[in-house]
């Protein structure tokens, strides 16, 4: 049987054995599937704070929005699972970003051992399954290097590597902590590394309103999304929605923001 099969794939041309030329993939296929085509956003509502017509309340703390929006999403979407070190304790992890989630969703708020490589890969496996949308928190982006193989060789490359059709809907939240005095190994901004490695999308919300839109997009997206939260913004305030509303931000349009007053 193997001889017969091989003879259907290989021919002799000018006395040499070669693959039947028409069986090769098309050259245009080369970069197909590096990331998905965002078709999951086709019928979705987009909003921007400047043009939002609904009710907003002001003075909302950024870090509270982080936990708040995750709570609202987990309440209605049983697929969402958050995981990371100490996110299930300390009133929402080391910054309060997951406050209240462990009490409400104990089987979907997972405090991990210290093993970034394993728990990141675990999240990758959950995402690849299709029935779970994992949200990993890296306590500091510097720790991503511990999980580098899983982030860059596995999660980032999985779609393209296996032919382009398999989704990897994973969200990776981390805080940029430069300026907190923790030294070289706790001060990284990982955007550049992610921007030059295949497969991921990056968002960096700067207001509570933007955070809601971008995290909703990240949770909807079938590609891995890095969500950067700057610690300096955690205690900042802004506007947020009065009522629950799922809206998203376009992931491909950068928005320039004014530098904050000193």
């Amino acid at each position: 049987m193997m001889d017969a099969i091989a003879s259907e794939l290989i021919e002799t041309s000018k006395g040499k054995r070669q693959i039947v030329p028409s069986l090769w993939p098309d050259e245009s296929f080369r970069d197909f599937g590096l990331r998905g085509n965002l078709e999951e956003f086709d019928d979705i509502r987009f909003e921007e704070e400047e043009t939002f017509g609904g009710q907003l309340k002001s003075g909302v703390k950024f870090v509270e929005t982080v936990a708040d929006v995750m709570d609202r999403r987990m309440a209605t979407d049983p697929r969402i699972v958050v995981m990371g070190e100490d996110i299930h304790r300390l009133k929402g992890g080391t910054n309060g970003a997951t406050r209240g989630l462990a009490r409400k969703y104990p089987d979907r708020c997972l405090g991990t051992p210290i093993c970034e490589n394993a728990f990141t890969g675990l999240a990758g496996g959950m995402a690849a399954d299709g029935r779970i949308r994992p949200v990993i928190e890296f306590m500091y982006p510097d720790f991503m290097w511990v999980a580098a193989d899983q982030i860059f060789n596995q999660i980032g490359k999985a779609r393209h590597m296996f032919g382009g059709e398999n989704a990897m809907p994973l969200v990776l939240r981390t805080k940029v902590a430069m300026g907190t005095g923790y030294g070289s190994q706790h001060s990284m901004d990982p955007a550049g590394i992610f921007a030059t490695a295949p497969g991921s999308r990056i968002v960096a919300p700067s207001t509570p309103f933007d955070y809601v839109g971008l995290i909703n997009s990240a949770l909807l997206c079938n590609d891995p999304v890095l969500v950067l939260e700057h610690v300096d913004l955690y205690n900042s305030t802004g506007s947020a929605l009065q009522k629950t509303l799922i809206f998203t931000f376009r992931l491909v349009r950068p928005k320039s923001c004014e530098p904050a007053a000193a």
Partner: protein
Amino acid sequence: MPEYKHLKPLAPWREIKASRDDWAALKPELGTTMLTQMHLIPAFEEKVLELAAQGLVHGPAHSAIGQEGGAVGSAIAMRPGDQVNGSHRAHHQFLAKALCFVEQDGIDPNQPFSGEVRHLAKRTLAEILGLAQGFCKGRGGSMHLRWPEAGNLGTNAIVGGGVPIAAGAAWVHRHLNTGNVVYTYFGDGAVNIGSVLETMNIAAAWKLPICFFIENNGYAVSTTVAESTAEIRLSSRGLAFGISSFKVDGMDPIAVYLASDEANAHMRAGHGPTIIEADVYRFYHQNGALPGSAFGYRTKQEGGAMARA
């Protein structure tokens, strides 16, 4: 004089062998299916090596000839909904799982291969050759074989890289109560890398239904197990993490089947992960069609003795 108390590990660690009674009790369909798979898989591998020697395989050809027993014995014990992943040397594991999926009532060696089996073999060979009709449209090649319908999650070219991912799949099964299990196949080379050991720990802590299947063929390319680790009985790692572990002769597919069956009962009951260490022999060098002895790291006699055993 200090006092000593010998401490006992949490989980059992056992060697498992198939007795004469086990051979007699084996369902004939299982026996004949295993036999057929153990002929088809090396035939497939030999075809790959033949094509590689002719320069027709653009990429590696990590042959699993000699290691079929571990793949077939474990695949036969699984259900269609169970899942597996493997490493760069995984054609045999991919095929064994896929064959069990396309022929769920077993394969009769007295009949010609079915159209489904032929199609499976062709699509797998096509993927290895990088052709558009392959499972990953030719993009994956030999080391990235994926067929999710059959439970093949996707093989991995980073040593130990697929192990955490398999644990993630197992987490979903546990969370959704599917009763399914995941086998992650890797070798004696991978057993010393961080990702594997980290995953063993978290899998045990979270009671994930995953079997860490260690294919011990004695060599990581040319480096021996004895050079690489102090405790060369690799299933011993289970003792450190509280994982129920088995050591088995991987050249005896019946013994592997029995180990897998017991591991599956443990995992499906929610008791957490298992380890199966299967001793096998890789007849060829790491990559390609030459024997290992051609590269000087082992003798021709060793290869011959293993072939006769």
